């Protein structure tokens, strides 16, 4: 390279180049390493923001899922409440993680003033992303959170699920008013924090 430079440029001076390199190194070595007129100390700070999850139920859903008056021996009776996209579970926009929504009931539908129940095997539900109404077949209602069949999976803040339920009334079911409580739980996607 140096020979080439010498050949191309008769004025090329290798000593000057070496001098320049040496000067550059000297300059680097002599860059001030200490300015005693100030003193600087550093530390770090950190905070961990926990997951924040909030879901809400549409007003009809929050006011209770009604199936109306049904006859024994009938199947797949849709709830009257959750018609026409009326039952939605929405992940709030201030939720800061993606969310799975799972469902359980406190108990099978139980006759008021009695102990008779309508089995959960006949209480099914399904959900959609809200572009279509849920349809059968659905999932059997469980009295523990069902992590296999989720109402919604990996939902981003602001997303919703439209929900519907169907009920079978066994033949010979004693007349009366039956009720239970449904729990919708939002948890960070991939966890089983709902218990």
């Amino acid at each position, binding site marked *: 390279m140096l020979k080439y430079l010498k050949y191309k440029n008769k004025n090329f001076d290798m000593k000057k180049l070496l001098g320049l390199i040496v000067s550059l190194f000297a300059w680097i*070595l*002599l*860059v*001030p*390493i*200490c*300015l*005693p*007129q*100030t*003193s*600087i*100390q*550093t*530390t*770090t*700070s*950190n*905070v*961990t*923001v*926990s*997951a*924040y999850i909030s879901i809400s139920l549409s007003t009809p859903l929050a006011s209770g899922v009604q199936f109306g008056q049904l006859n024994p021996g009938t199947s797949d009776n849709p709830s009257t409440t959750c018609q026409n996209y009326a039952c939605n579970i929405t992940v709030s*926009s*201030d939720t*800061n*993680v993606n969310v799975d929504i799972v469902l359980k009931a406190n108990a099978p539908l139980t006759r008021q003033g009695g102990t008779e129940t309508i089995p959960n095997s006949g209480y099914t539900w399904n959900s959609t992303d809200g572009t279509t109404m849920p349809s059968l077949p659905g999932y059997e209602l469980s009295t523990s959170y069902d992590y296999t069949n989720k109402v919604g999976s990996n939902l981003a803040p602001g997303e919703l699920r439209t929900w519907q339920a169907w009920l079978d009334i066994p033949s010979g079911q004693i007349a009366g008013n039956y009720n239970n409580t449904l729990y919708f739980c939002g948890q*960070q996607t991939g966890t089983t924090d709902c218990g």
Partner: protein
Amino acid sequence: MKKAIIVLALFLILIYPAFALTEFKLINSTGQAMNLSYDLNSTSYKDNSITNPRAWVKVCGSDLLNKWVGLVYSGGNNSAFKIVSNLAKFITSLDASNCITFPADISSFRALYPSRIACSVSSSPDLSNGNIYFSDEYMIGKYRVQQTDNGTHVEVRVKNIIDDQGNEITVNQSFLVVTLIRKDTKEVLDSAVTYKNVSVTLSRSGYNGDVEILINGMKPVYIAISLSPTLASGITYGTLDPGDVNVSSQNCINKACNITVSQDTNVNVDIVMKVNAYLTHQSGSTIETQYWNSSLTQQPTLPAYQVSLTYDYTHKVAENVSPGTDVIFGTWVSIPTDAATGLYNNTIYFCAQEAGLNEC
């Protein structure tokens, strides 16, 4: 014969009593120790001027007789010094206490810069090869320097020379005695005489430890702060929920986070702070609502100021605090309701600078 002479010389050196002053002061007419201020009229630290009363030198020592004594600029050795007196005083008599007081006779042509008052006691009227002594009095002022250290040599440039009124001294003469000393023993390693803004390179003389610079016997402006172990180990706010407001750090409580101005800092300082970035998540999202407060007396309990990405000279962590001062620091964070989950961190810089300046 030669051997005998050498042995005799060594013997004389060994038995010759070490020369020592028992007292050295710059005093006024009433015998009180006095400092000298910068006299704008003579542009010097001359005594007997509009600014300074007449000054006298008081020296005491049993072996002062027949020695020359004069005030000098020096860093402690006799290889580099500048005479400050008009004439050196030849000591021909001492009082019963082995002391003598004589006019300082400080020269307006030589006493140009701040210094620790020093004298040379020499066998020569030019004060060469003399013993150097320091008094506790000063020509009041200060120096700011820039220094580089490559491990074998220290290069020093005097950037600013400031008088006792805070004004820059503009007279430019080669009356700056720059001395490199060991920090522990104060032993002089090297010294040289220079001008303002003209660098000198001093040898460490093989010494690898901590060193200090003296300019005319004075330590230039030196500032050092340290963080308490708790603060130095990092501030942590713990795990917080979105929407949490003004949550104190977990560790900067009960006066655990202190910034201390070192005792060897030789000016009052302001302490300012900045952050390298707002608290930052790995995704790049940030939390800007980080706050701090400080106090000299008690643990701050309320957030006062938001952190800044540049040094905040309006809201100082401490203002005009003296060496040895402890500043108690507290910090808080509020979590926006839309903050993403996860770890956020940043780095906080505390900078101490000479009070009133913005040099950080």
